[in-house]
């Protein structure tokens, strides 16, 4: 089985704290798997996601994503790694308010140097699939929360990443919009997309994930995959 994510002895300490915010943690995620990371606030969920995305560096251990040692990469290589291998969806969307929906979606493709026409074509496909094509020329501030998160998902997928990371993707949405996004993630996973989902919402974890790990105080307290193996 090919692993998209491999964490070995990964720990993260902030500042001069003795106790790590995360770890040490060992974790492997297979290609095509949908992993939900749950846990209370401060348990290390977002830290884990940031380490996998290369947004932060571990204090100890190794982080390998899509066969590349993320923890050893320089900033330039990390940037290239993120735009080519990772798609990210955030709780508060993190769309750029001064760009139109279409420009927001195209942006990661343009950062990789994709030709303008090709980037527009790929963004058009995604907007059609996600049902937001009518908002292509609108600005994010004018959209509903659910629509904005769809835009964020489209932007995350524009470079066909090996891994989709979602940090509380329904946390800022009303129930209907949350349901909408949940279905979207399920569809993506069914389509073969490897997904790591950080959430408080156990219902979302159950609906979208094939595997769940539960973090408590930076350590993996429950791993449904390990239990299944046992």
């Amino acid at each position: 089985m090919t692993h998209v994510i491999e964490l070995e002895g990964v720990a993260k300490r902030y500042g001069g704290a003795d106790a790590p915010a995360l770890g040490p943690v060992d974790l492997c995620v297979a290609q095509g798997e949908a992993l939900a990371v749950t846990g209370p606030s401060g348990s290390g969920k977002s830290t884990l996601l940031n380490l996998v995305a290369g947004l932060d560096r571990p204090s100890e251990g190794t982080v390998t994503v899509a066969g590349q040692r993320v923890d050893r990469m320089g900033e330039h290589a990390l940037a290239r790694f993120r735009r080519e291998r990772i798609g990210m969806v955030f709780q508060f969307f993190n769309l750029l308010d001064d760009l139109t929906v279409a420009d927001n979606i195209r942006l990661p493709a343009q950062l990789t140097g994709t030709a303008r026409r090709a980037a527009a074509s790929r963004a058009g496909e995604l907007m059609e699939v996600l049902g937001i094509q009518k908002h292509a020329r609108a600005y994010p501030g004018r959209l509903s929360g659910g629509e904005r998160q769809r835009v964020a998902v489209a932007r995350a997928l524009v470079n066909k990443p090996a891994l989709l990371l979602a940090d509380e993707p329904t946390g800022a949405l009303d129930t209907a919009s949350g349901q909408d996004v949940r279905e979207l993630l399920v569809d993506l996973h069914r389509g073969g997309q490897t997904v790591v989902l950080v959430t408080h919402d156990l219902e979302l974890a159950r609906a979208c994930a094939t595997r769940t790990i539960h973090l408590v105080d930076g350590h993996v307290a429950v791993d449904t995959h390990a239990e299944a193996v046992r």
Partner: protein
Amino acid sequence: MIRFGSGALGRVVRSGVGRRRVQTLVIAVATMMAVASAVVAGSLMVATNAPFDHAFARQHGAHLTASFDPGRVSAAQLAGTRDLEGVTASAGPFPATTIKPVGRDGGHLPALTLVGRSGPGKDVDALDLKSGRWARKSGEIVLAASFSGQFLELGSTLMSSDAADARTLTVVGFALSAGGSAEMWATPDEVRSLASGDGGLTSQMLYRFDSAATKSQIAADRKRLGAALPSGALVGTQSWLDTKRAADQGAAATIPFLFAFGVLGIVMSVIIVGSVISGAVGTSLRRIGILKAVGFTPREVVRAYVAQALIPAAAGIALGVVLGNLLAVPLLNDTESVYGTVSLSVAWWVDVVVPAGALLVVAVAALVPALRAGRLRTVEAIAVGRAPRTTRGQWAHRAAGRLPLPRPVTYGLASPFAHPVRAIAMVLAVAFGTVAATFAVGLTQSLDAVANAQDPENRADVTVVSGGPSGSGPGTVEKRQKPPPGGSRQAPAGAGPNQGQASADPAAVRAAIAAQPGTASYYGTATGDATVSGISGTVRATLYQGDSRPGGYEMIAGHWISGRGQVVVPTGFLERTGTRIGDSVRVTFQKETVSLRIVGEAFDTSDDGMRVHADLDSFAKAEPGVFHVEVKSGVSAADYAQKLAGVVKPLGGDAFAESAPEGENMIVLLEAMAALLTLMLVSVAGLGVLNSVVLDTRERVHDLGVCKALGMSPRQTVSLVLASVAGIGVVGGLIGVPAGFALHGYVLPVMGRSAGTGLPPSVLDVYDTSQLVLLGLAGVLVAVLGAMAPAGWAAKVRTATALRTE
């Protein structure tokens, strides 16, 4: 600060200052540079404001310097003149004489007025002892400060004359008399002793009158003085109005230049301080909302934020005053030597008005956004930073997105449109910096052109002296230095190499030059005093023989002399005589009078513009005294001169190679001042950009984090931030270069008019297209340099940290 000291408000202010260290530092540094610039600019503007009048008032200068014959009037009678009607103060009588000292190398100084005084004086003509000390004993002299320099320094010795029994005089000090009462001072006994040899002793009295503002008032004062003393006792007077006119004409040329830089410095300071402070307060709206939410009243919020801006600004202002004073000292020293005035210092009120004005600008700049913030409803203020931003600038992003450039660049290019006021402040900062740079470059080139245009005869490779009967004589080869404005400096003449020799036959010398291998071209000149009908006194005339174009002056209008019957004159001559090109003037040179047609206006500022340049053949009896030779390419001028000297010396002439002309003091000083002032203004512009980009980058750090999370590399992040100011740099350059060009075009002619001359195209048209393009790019460079630090910070900031930033 007592009101903000220990309470909650004090803690808010202190934490606000401490939390944003970079911004606090930028406010302090930008304010410091702006205030330093304003202090320097203000000091220079004060210094340029009637420098002679200030120096004269400070020294209680003499309205009338009178010379009396001691054989006709007693010292007691002279002392009694202080009680005459209208006399408010007097000094003297001082023994005075005129001597013509000789340097150790045999060079002659011009005839100098030597006055015997026991000290620098107090009530009238209180001399400013610039260096050294006063003369205490026989053999010691104090010289006018304008002589201080490479030829004469403290400890230098001069001979009192070229007589065999001449006395040795040691320079023990340099002093300055604003009213120009003398050029040399010694003890009274020494003057009497020196005068006895020549028999030229006079008594000098210095007077101040209650009414001496006009020529007629001075004339009335003089008349009263003459009437009160025995007939024939008063042998000569010198009015302070004449000294003032000469001093003002010299100093006036620099005033427009210094005024232009002064205005630029002050305007830029106000713009930068205003934008820095208002930007800093404007970015704190959310924190202000939180303060209001926890119970601070709007008035407390306003006070807190005004104080928060005032603390670093006050530190910057204090440092700026110190820095400004430190920088102003050498510039004022330069100005002092340019003007030839007494010691200049930063006016006390500049040190009060500039910081007070800066504090006012800071307070107003902070108050406006703070009041706006204080009036904001709490929820609105808190929402700032969380809610989607306004729609300002979205059109720019749409437009920029279509440009065929990398996306980070187009994203950056559109960014300034989100904050138009801040962008305008940045554009103005860059534009003013570019104006200063453009003006300084043009000014430097113009001054170089002025230097090159002076003394064109010095351009010759070799000078050959024949002496001859033209009246020029060997003395015409003296290597004279131009006198400083208002002064009368002359270096001890190194004297021509043949000084004291018999004159050679010009025709024989000319033949020797023509026969000498290596001669490319040559022309002869005769120099002497001439009279011109309608003008009292004499004018200096230079007559040219042969193809004199290589030694011709730069022409303001018309053309250089091309044949007999033609004369070229400077602007001053045209103005004094009321003539124009095409008019004829009658010139008498060595008792030969001819009518000459004015064919050109020359750029020649020597002798106050009272000169004529004519063809030697116009005067039948005139003969050249000097020949100026161009040698062929590849021929050593020194070798040529040596060989030619071997031929002409037996004839009574001599030949020597010209050394490269030295830069004129005033021009070198003006260029140095322009360079320093430009550097300061460009630095202030860069700091203005730095501050704005710091604010902008901090505000957009979350967006930058998003971009980095999406895969924007550090290099792309840097290019985004730099692109955000590149457009501003281009616009600033597009405004600044034409404005600097126009400023140069306006100031230079004003400088010329102040100096009593028009300016030739070579001085005015100094810019070429490629230079203007480069200066335009300098605007981009200033903007990019100002943005480098925040761009680096944006590239380095951790993505996760940036994403957490609200």
